[in-house]
């Protein structure tokens, strides 16, 4: 079951960051401080395991703001269950990502 999946510390941190509102790759990097070589493969694995899902921002919005479109990530139901299990396993994750951000998300 996905809820019982055991994630690495980095993957769990990324999951927490997405839950806290870091919704595209660069913002995840900013929030977690993890390098790109860790974040993007981890995002792919989490998506493959159906813990997160992604969608591309509409091109019109990005064009209007003179920037490239973002690929947004969002936790799935299985992802949220896994996140709860991971927070029990890595309680310090709550301190790495500001609590207010998690609750706000």
């Amino acid at each position, binding site marked *: 079951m996905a809820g019982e999946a055991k994630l690495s510390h980095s993957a769990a941190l990324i999951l927490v960051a997405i839950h806290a509102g870091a919704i595209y790759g660069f913002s995840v990097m900013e929030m977690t401080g993890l390098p790109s070589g*860790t974040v993007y493969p981890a995002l792919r694995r989490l998506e493959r395991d159906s813990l997160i899902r992604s969608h591309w921002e509409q091109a019109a919005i990005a*064009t209007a703001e003179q920037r*490239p479109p973002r*690929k947004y990530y969002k936790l799935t139901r299985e992802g949220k269950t896994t996140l709860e299990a991971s927070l029990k396993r890595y309680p310090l994750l709550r301190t790495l990502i500001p609590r207010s951000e998690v609750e706000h998300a």
Partner: protein
Amino acid sequence: MSLPPRDWLFRIHVLILHCASMLVPAAKRREWQKEWAAEAWYVWQAAKVAPDASLGGWPEVSAFCRGAWSDAFWLRRNSPWQATLTLASPGVCILFLTIIVAINLLLALHFPDTRNAILPDPHQNATTTVLISRQGLAEVQGPTIRLEEYEQWRATTHRFFTKLAFYQPVRRRVRISGDSTVELSMARATANLFDLIDTPAALTARSGSDRGKPLKLPALVLSQSVWQDHFGADQNVVGRVLKIGGEDVMIAGVMPDTYWRLPAHLDALLLYDDQSIAKLPRHSKGFVLARWRSAALAGGASGMWRWNIPTHDGRYDSFDCMSLAQRSRAALSRFLLTLMLAVLALPAITPLALGDYPGRGARQRWACFRRWTFLIAKIALVLPASYFLSLDLAHFLPGVQIPVSFAALLFGLRWVLRDQRKRCPVCLRVLTNPARVGQPSWNFLAWNGTELMCEAGHGLLHVPELTTSWFSTQRWLYLDPSWECLFPATLV
């Protein structure tokens, strides 16, 4: 996304990311490419406005690109298709063969004797100019004709030859300047040698007022490599006088290395008049070059023939005459002979049938075209690889060209056929997961043998263990698209 024209540095980083994406499996490549390019822009924007930004944020973008390469590498490494980087991939297979051909070609071009077998013949009268050697010694690299024989032919064979030239390899120490001496491989030759091999360019190198005047003998013609190595490529070397074996010799010119294709390695040629040559020991041996009066007399198309000439005591001496054209193509002729022998011997060591690949749709026709193109490309690379390899080894071990060429062709063509048979006809990758099917006793109503599978799910190959009238050769079974869910996405 529109970028200001000055952001070419960012475009370079995007290009680097595109290159990195080439390592990503094809099915996922576009997605990775798009996300990397977008994210790099955000990294750049954030880095250049950061309080501690240095160099406009480019170090951060470069670090992002390095991370992308790392991602792509590990993605490829962890892929079930990582064998793409081995010979299982058709592209890598062709690349590997091309590299083998290139290495052998470069080696062959490096050695003077093998280079002569590859480059076009520079001689204009190569079909009527012949090298005469004692019977059965045409392939020998050493001198075989005595000076007295040359002198006799010069006096008595005008009806056969328009010109005759003699040269004799020797080693001589040459004083280059002051106390600097060097030992060179030379040939004492008659002055008309250059007329015979149609390389007057070397002698016209004489400068100034000497140009066009008769050559003052003895004269020295340096090879280009000696001129460069020992004379510092001095443009004014022509006309300089050197002391060789106690006599003064004037440098008359420089000969390009590719011009000398006759037997014996030479660093320089010492040209003498006929009287000086006649003073050499009469039994000393050298090489004789001759120009036949007409091509009709010159052995026809074969380029090699036997020449019998009466001696003083009423007997006949036999000599082999080989045209320069024949000498140039001798290595290729030997290769073609071994190619014919290898093709004849091939059915003895492997079946020639490639298998039964049914299907008449447009997809199958395209697959058939690719399959045959791949086969022809492999053969087209194995042939020159074998030729150049045989030339290279013959340089170190004279006389091994034929056995090496035959073995390389035979086993090379065998590998081509065997390799072709074990590949998927659609993606041309090597088939995997061999499984034994059935038992020999099934042959009466079914078949037994080995079943191989394409990793991409294009089909199965059935290879019978015992050939029967209803199952004589391997047979391919295309899988329909309903099987695709069982196989990983196509990468290439």
